[in-house]
C-alpha cells in the first residue's frame, strides 16, 4: 500500500504554525490536531519511506471486529534521525499508538507516540525538537536573569 498524503508531516510537528497546534497544509485537512486517540493492535505492515512512513495495525474493536488502522508518520529522514530503523518494529508486534484522529473518524491516525513490545516509548520527532528548544529557553532566561 502506498502513502496517501504528500508533503511534510515532520514540518507540521516541528514548525507548528498558526492555528491549531498541529495545523499544517498536509495535516490539518485530514487530521484533527486538537484531539488524540490511542489504539492497541498488532502490526501488519511498516514501511519506512518518504514522504511519510506508514504503519498498518490490526485493531480489534469493541464489537470484536478486526479493523486495519493506518498510522501516518514523519518521513524516513526524520524518523531515522531519531533512532528509527526498518527493524524498530516487526510484523506481529503488539503496539500501543497515540496520535491525532481524522476529521471523519476513519481508521487512520497521525503518529504522536508509540509504546513498543519491550515497553520502550518513542515520541514524534517534533516533540523531541520542542523539548530541546524549551531547555535552551530556560537557559536563555536564566542568563538574562543573571544580568
Amino acid at each position, binding site marked *: 500500500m502506498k*502513502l*496517501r498524503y*504528500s508533503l511534510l508531516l515532520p514540518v507540521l510537528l516541528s*514548525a507548528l*504554525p498558526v*492555528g491549531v*497546534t498541529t495545523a499544517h497544509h498536509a495535516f*490539518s485537512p485530514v487530521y484533527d490536531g486538537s484531539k488524540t486517540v490511542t489504539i492497541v493492535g498488532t502490526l501488519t505492515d511498516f514501511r519506512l519511506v518518504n514522504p511519510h512512513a506508514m504503519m498498518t495495525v490490526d485493531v480489534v474493536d469493541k464489537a470484536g471486529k478486526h479493523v486495519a488502522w493506518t498510522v501516518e508518520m514523519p518521513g524516513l529522514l526524520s524518523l531515522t534521525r531519531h533512532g528509527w530503523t526498518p527493524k524498530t518494529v516487526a510484523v506481529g508486534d503488539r503496539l500501543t499508538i497515540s496520535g491525532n484522529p481524522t476529521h471523519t473518524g476513519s481508521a487512520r491516525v497521525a503518529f504522536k507516540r508509540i509504546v513498543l513490545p519491550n515497553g520502550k516509548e518513542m515520541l514524534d520527532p517534533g516533540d523531541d525538537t520542542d523539548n530541546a528548544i*524549551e531547555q535552551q529557553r530556560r537557559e536563555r532566561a536564566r542568563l538574562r536573569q543573571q544580568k
Partner: protein
Amino acid sequence: MKQIFIAALGILTIGCGQASEPAARAGSAPRPDFSGMWSDPPAAAVDDFCFMTCTDEGVARLNALLDDPANDSRPYQELSREAVRYQRDEVIRPRLTPDTSNAFPIDPADDPGFLRCEPWGFARQIFAPHQLEIRQGDDRIEMRYAEWDGRRTIYLDDASRPASQPATPMGFSVGRFEGDALVVETSAVTANLLGIFPAWFKHGDQLRAVERYTRTAERLEMIVTIEDPVSLRQPLRFRKAWAWAPDEQIFPYTSCEPPTEFKKEGSQR
C-alpha cells in the same frame, strides 16, 4: 530516478574536467565552494522558526518575545505561533496585491502537492527542509533537494546557458559569484504557490528572484528577494539556513498518493 541523477552528475563532472579552468579563472579571485550535503540546522528556537523560511521581521518578533521575562512561562511553540502570525499579517500581507491578499493564505486543502502529489515549484522548493545537495562545477551548479527530490541547474557562464528557456516550475537560473557569495537570479517560473503555509499565496509567471548564498564551515545561509507584479506590491525577502551534513543522504521520494479524505480549512484565514 536516482541512477539518472547520478549519471547526470557524472556528465557534469566530466564536463567540469574538460573546462579550461586556468583560462576561465585567470585573473579572478578563487570561487567559494558550496559543494556538499547540507541539511536542517540543530534544534534551536530561531532555526526552528525558520525551519522552512522566515523573514527578518519575524525573527525579530520571535526574539523580542523570547527576551521578554513576561513570556518565560509560556511554551516556545506558543511564542513561535505568535511570531508566525505577526510575520503573516504584519510583514507579508501588507506587501500583497489586493487580489492576492483577499485569497491569503491559500487553504492547505488547495495545495496541488497535497491534492495531486504535484512537486513543488521554485518558490516553495527553495524553502524545502531537510537535505540540499550542491554539486558545483565551473560552468554550472546543480542543486538537489530532498523534498520532492527537486532539482535545478544554475548556469554560471553564458557559454553553457541555453539560448532560450521556456517557463518551467523550477524556472531558469543564472548564477555569479560576488566575493564569498553565490548570487542566483531566477525567472521563467510558471505560476504556482509562493512561500510556506500559513503564509503562502499564488504567484504569477513574471516572478523573479535573487538568491544570495553564503557559507561558513558548518552553515549555509540563503537570503532571497522575490518580486512578482501579480502577487506582490513590494519585494519580499526571506531567509533560510542549512547545516553541513556530510553523512546524510537523500532518500527516494516515490510513495506519494493523493488523499482520500480531507476538508477545507477556512478557519485558518
